[in-house]
């Protein structure tokens, strides 16, 4: 008689509805008038996250090779200040998330957070921050930054909340790789469609383009997307052509 014989009910991990919720939150979010293009898009993500999750604010940080943390966008000025603290003290969840390449979820900053980042927790203590959820913005080896979410209460994000957070991170990553032109209202758009299935070929092709053209991974993906757009074919088709041996040109001279 094995342990498996009377299995309890099991639910599938993951929330497919997260994309719809994110889309709705994004279309309702408005950036400051003074901003446009990339900063505006990222601010809208920060605001959409803040309004659709139990958060007090959110920031997008870019982290340089020298581990300097720069706040690229924030939902509000108070969060912007919080986002800079890691740089000031030299430690914090966002740095760990970035370097380790995994989300760092801290539902109780003053509890476990205090043990892991004593300097950071001392610095944020007075401001009322109680939870931080740092999501790396990355695609494989392409590391762009972090989406850092702030909570005023001790709280473990539920599965649905986590899923939604990760969607926002995915969109933010995409936008950093491929900044939107103008002020397109729908930032989520078709970006989610690429995520479904068959990503293996896309990333292999990405690696190939880095060798063919001496680009970095981010540049390779952007170039592939540009070709897909100008040839009016899906990204996967461009990837397959590259896998079959085609070398892309930097200027699309087809």
């Amino acid at each position, binding site marked *: 008689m094995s342990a498996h014989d009377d299995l309890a009910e099991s639910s599938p991990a*993951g929330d*497919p509805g997260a994309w719809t919720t994110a889309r709705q939150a994004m279309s309702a979010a408005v950036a400051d008038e003074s901003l446009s293009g990339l900063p505006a898009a990222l601010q809208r993500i920060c605001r959409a996250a803040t309004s659709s999750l139990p958060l007090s604010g959110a920031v997008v940080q870019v982290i340089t090779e020298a581990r300097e943390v720069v706040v690229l966008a924030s939902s509000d000025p108070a969060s912007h200040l919080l986002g800079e603290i890691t740089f000031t003290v030299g430690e914090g969840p966002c740095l760990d998330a970035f370097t380790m390449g995994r*989300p760092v979820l801290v539902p109780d900053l003053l509890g476990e957070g205090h043990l892991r980042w004593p300097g950071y927790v001392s610095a944020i203590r007075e401001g009322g921050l109680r939870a931080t959820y740092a999501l790396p913005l990355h*695609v494989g080896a392409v590391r762009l930054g972090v989406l850092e979410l702030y909570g005023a209460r001790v709280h473990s994000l539920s599965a649905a909340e986590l*899923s939604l957070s990760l969607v926002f991170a995915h969109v933010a990553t995409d936008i950093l790789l491929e900044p939107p032109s103008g002020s397109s209202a729908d930032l989520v758009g078709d970006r989610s469609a690429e*995520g479904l299935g068959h990503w293996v070929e896309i990333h292999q092709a990405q*690696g190939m*383009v880095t060798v063919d053209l001496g680009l970095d991974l981010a540049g390779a993906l952007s170039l592939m997307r540009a070709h897909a757009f100008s040839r009016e074919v899906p990204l996967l088709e461009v990837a397959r052509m590259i896998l079959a041996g085609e070398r892309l040109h930097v200027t699309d001279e087809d």
Partner: protein
Amino acid sequence: MISSSRLSDLFVEVADTLVDEFDLVDFLHHVTSSAAEITASTAVGLMLADHDGTLRFMASSSEDARLLDLFQLQNAEGPCLDAHRTGEEVPDIIIESAADRWPVFAPRAAELGFGAAHCFPLRLRDQTIGAMNIFRTEPRTLEDEERRVARALADVATIGLMQERALRRAEELTEQLQFALNSRIVIEQAKGAVARVLDIGVEEAFTVIRGYARSHRRPLTEVAREAVEDRPALQALTDSYTRQSRE
């Protein structure tokens, strides 16, 4: 079913990968190739659920592109999708008569020459985090012993994913799954780069990367990441292959 001494050897190997120099992708690769050998199956593949429920390919006993394709299409339909959704095994699949059940998956599996399949959910407490799919060329279902051992390996895969004997924190699962999925992307990017430099297939590129990691006693994912981030590192990796193939 293989001999019990070979079975012990394989479990020891899997356990060793779990403790020394732990690299998640390498470990999962080991689990799938062990499962293939133990159950005398043609191919075994493992998929993990992303945060939005999408099943992502994570590891398999063979890097054949057509096989990877068969796994990836299971996002829309197939035994992996069913196992993930229900949390239950999808056993004893005879491909030839499975077209009604899976009109896209079954013919594609048949095209690849598979006659039978079996799918195990990867379960952790009350959550199904993915699935492990076994394929055979002959239309022969798993024997009881094979099924038990394969199920045990699926559990071992889940344990390896968590890397800890007891989950300290509820957040650990999400963090680890996301890390695992991203690590796989790093591997794919590296496969592409190495394949292009050496003018070989991506399948062979994976073997090159693994071989290099092993001979330098470094984690697979770390070697892969370095190869795509740093041109000299890529050069060193590919040079070692060129040297070897001349010998």
